[in-house]
């Protein structure tokens, strides 16, 4: 990995307040709480950026709650992330981190789709192509360096 930082002093955004879920679930034992946007966002908000290990993706605005699309019934999740700079050189790693984390956290029935936000990166198409190559992604997960970033 390239050790020279492209963006030495990134803008840090304030963390959003964590929603405290109203505990209505206790009243009905058998009601179903579907997996929703906030659920999925909670899984990935604390992933550390590969370039700035002390900052989370949320703080860098790489992902927001709105960048998560979930359909529990169709078992489909799509994450659209925005790299900090258009020529940021780790978008593949970012995408892989998000993918790996969701793979660990979501039930197996889910199809996970991670993409770079349109217009947010110079090599958008190339990155998206790499990210949709599942075999490549799974191979990437073997890298112990990545596993350390996830928690």
């Amino acid at each position, binding site marked *: 990995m390239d050790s020279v930082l492209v963006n030495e002093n990134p803008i840090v955004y304030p963390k959003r307040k964590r929603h405290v879920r109203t505990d209505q679930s206790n009243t009905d034992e058998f*009601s179903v*709480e579907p997996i929703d946007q906030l*659920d999925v966002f909670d899984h990935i908000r604390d992933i550390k950026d590969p370039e700035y290990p002390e900052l989370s993706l949320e703080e860098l605005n790489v992902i927001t709650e709105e960048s998560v699309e979930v359909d529990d019934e169709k078992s489909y999740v799509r994450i659209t992330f925005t790299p900090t700079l258009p020529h940021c050189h780790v978008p593949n790693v970012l995408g892989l981190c998000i993918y790996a984390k969701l793979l660990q956290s979501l039930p197996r029935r889910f199809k996970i789709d991670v993409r770079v936000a349109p217009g947010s990166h110079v090599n958008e198409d190339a990155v998206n192509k790499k990210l949709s190559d599942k075999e490549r992604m799974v191979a990437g997960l073997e890298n112990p360096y990545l596993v350390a970033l996830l928690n």
Partner: protein
Amino acid sequence: MVEPNQLTQHLETFVDITRSPTQQDDSLRRIASSLENDTLSINQLVREMEMYLTTTDDVVRARGILLLAEILNSLKQKPLDNAIVHSLIGFFTEKLADWRAVRGALVGCLALLKRKNVAGVDVLAIAKAMIQNVQVQSFALLERKLCFELLECLLQHHSEAIITMGNLLVYATCEAIDGEKDPQCLMVVFHLIELLAQLFPSPSGPVASDASDIFDSIACYFPLHFTHTKGDEASITREDLSRGLLRAFSSTPFFEPYAIPLLLEKLSSSLTVAKVDSLKCLKDCAMKYGVYRMKKHYGVLWSALKDEFYSSTGTQLSFALESLTSPGFEMNEIHREAVNLLQTLVNQDISFLGFVVDDIHINTVFDTISRHSQYKEMPDTSKLDVLVISQILSVSAKASVKSCNIIFQTVFFRLMNILGIVEIVSTGDVFPKGNSTVSTRLYHGGLHLCIELLRASKDLILDFEEYSPTPGCAQESWCSIVKSFSFPLIQVFTSAVRCSNNDCAEDVYFGVKGLLAMGMFWGGSSPLSRSEFEKILMTLTSIITAKSAKTVVWELALRALVCIGSFIDRYHDSDKVMSYMSIVVENLVSLASSSQCGLPYAMLLEATSEVCSTGPEHVEKMVQGFEEAFCSSLSDFYVTGNFKSIDNCSQLLKCLTNKLLPRVAEIDGLEKLLVHFAISMWNQIESCGVFSCDFNCREFVEAAMTSMGQVVGIALVESQNSIFQKAYSVISSSILPAMESIPLTFAALEGLQRDLSKRDELILSLFASVMIAASPAASIPDAKSLIHLFLVSLLKGYIPAAQALGSMVNKLSSGSGGTNISSDCSLEEACDIIFHADFALEKKISSNGSGPSGKIICASETTLSKICLGLCGSVDLQTRAITGLAWIGKGLLMRGDKRVNEIAQVLVECLKSSNRSGHALHPSAMKHSADAFFILMSDSEVCLNRKFHAVIRPLYKQWFFSSTVPILESLIMNSETPLSRTMLHVALAHVISNVPLTVILDNTKKLHPLILEGLSVLSVDSSEKETLFSLLLVLSGTLTDTKGQQSASDNAHIIIECLVKLTSYPYLMVVRETAIQCLVALLELPHRRIYPFRRKVLQAIVKALDDRKQRVRKEAIRCRQAWVSITT
């Protein structure tokens, strides 16, 4: 006695630096103690030590001198001869010049200076040697500290001797402290400055002439920056240091020309700490330096202060309930200190007020006020103006009577003019304008300012009255100004409150706040007449009674009334107490008892209880009113059958229980009132006949039981006795005879139905609650018949009767008969009746007496147990008897009575699929006996607890646990049917989950297999989900404790198997959640024990990731991560 060679040994030990500090301390202590008890004299010691004190070896000499000094230091209490002190001082003074031995010399001088008999010459000698030979800043920390302490001691205890040194002393001190950085030393340094200032107060003295130099040496520390939080440094905090520095700053007026400019400069810094410290210090300095010296700084001070007010005030004005009695905006520390400074300055010198009043901003604020009517419409700058100016004016007004007069004279007329209260002020006469104009000119800014001024003057009266006994404010001009405007002001506020538009919540808020401010003027010097005060109360009360829903204004008005009420009560204002009583309290209480008002009854009760809780007299009135209300509602219900009345009764009782009973310790005499209430409840019930209609009054009975129980619980024993008497007379005239006539025979008991009338049920329940709450010392009339009564009623299925019987056996004194005067029945007799109640079939038992085991009667042979075992009677009767037996058993268990074992035996017998006689048990009876173990072991809220004076033997749960678990365990091993096995497990789970965890942890090896089997048996269906959960909690407790982990490690495979199954338990979310948490906890076990199960756990967890509940999914993710990571 110290032998000479022993002494030498000690000396050698101390001087030898290779020895350990403890050894050195020990030898020091031994020498000191032999001096203390005169086995060794100082002269001898010095002679013996000569070699050490004078040798040319620096190290040995230094240690030797230190030893002598430390010995003197530990002999503070022992008187020494003047000559000895003189010669020792001579020695140490000389050694001050010997820099290698200076530590010993300093310790020695300090120890000697602390003595009473030190001659002035000696002191002077020390001081001179100190000044000439000691270069303080060249020493290490410890020596520096000693130097400063020596100086401190000189200045503090020997000031008359060294005052002659004058300039030299001041100069030397300055030199010594210059550049000091250690916090502990600085604490002493700051004190040194203070002492110097006290020593030389004269304007021609050395401090006055050297003020600039002295100040320079301490000015560099301001504002104090110190970030060490805790730990080392002898726990000195930033606050300590900063307080010391402030005291040094304000120690002498000669610092004024240097200090004030410095402080003003630091005030303009952007650091909060600097601002706060500067403001604090300015306040102290202003008081110490005096008006004359401060005067020239007023202009600068005022503008700096004003800036601080502006920068520390937000524009957010709160309209919340809580801010009715505060200025209504958030205050930070800077703001509070600015307020203190302003108040001090105005209080000290009224001429400072000139700057405030003449300030251009204050004059322009009136234009701002009259430009915007609504607060929310104002631009932020105007909001800030209004808030800051109001705050400045009210703080200045609060400072003194004079300032209050000036502020009111200059501002109040203009304010009234803007608010449209007065037309022309030039003539001095005041003509309030008509109401029509008033309502159109509600300027929020003006109202806020006006309210703040009123509140300030109210506080002023209170301060004033505290200092002078005669009411003097009435003659002051501010008071007469308020007086002349009080009537129209009240009108303005009232009309604001009455505003009925939707968007005038703020009007209403200001109205209530204004009325509250007006209502809180104190006593004799109040500018309000009594009728005006009463008008305020009436307005507020009418708001409360007129509204039919809980609106903001209702809550505001209630809060305002409560504030006024507690204010009056706190300051004992007799006139106002009367008005408050007649207008507010009596009015609300009478409404509560007549229940003829538009307000919902619950709200009325809430208002009444809130208002009345402000003072003891009000509480008394309220309890009396409630009593009347209760009686009239209840009789109304009896006569007309009006459901609303009985509903009101329930609400009233609930209000009593929730609002008043918790405060019984705070309010004097409340106990008596409540007991009276309880007795009149009984009276009322007695006088009422049968219910005229069949109404399910469960709610009422429950409320009445709770109130009755709680009242009896808090009452003294004598009051309990009188309640008992009353209750007994009621019960004996109604149901007691009828019940007593039922003989305790199978034939009679089998035919029992729930056949009590509603009234009898009420009486029985109430009586039971009295019995449940009574203390063991209370005397129970006719206890034997009562036991009979409860016994019959519990067989009829009345649970409170069973609880009452349990409480009785818990509290009756043991011993045969007459040992306890308070009751005509002992525990033995009671048990006789309960267990042994003989009937025709069982004559032989009663004739046989107690059998081989002494007095203890075998319960399994008694009527009750036969019913329990289902030998006779219906299933219904059987289950009732089992539940009843459980409560009786609980009473016995808690006092540690052995008879509970017999009861447990009966209950266990009921759990077997078929008992000794081959009689098959009904499943519902088995279920009830399993649950009986829950009754026995769990803590109950309704009876047999500390609140209700239960007799509780320590460790009773542990005792029952250790005697029951083996029995249950062996029965489980041998159980014949699945049902019986399940029920035995339920019973065991109840016992295990209610015993303290430490007991479980001591027996995990034995219990783990049982718990795990229990978990798997109980998880079969949903009927025991709560029991399952509490058993699972016990398991998780054993997994997280180190004590349980050994056994958990041995049983890892079955534990994991069981937990994995529970992760998909469908009936209770918390079970799944806890099971997953337990799986995480298991990772604490040795790696080799758990690794084989990794695959299995992960498979289960992956399923849990798709759980229907979010909390379970969250735990599953955590668990999955933890288990995945054990690979590497």
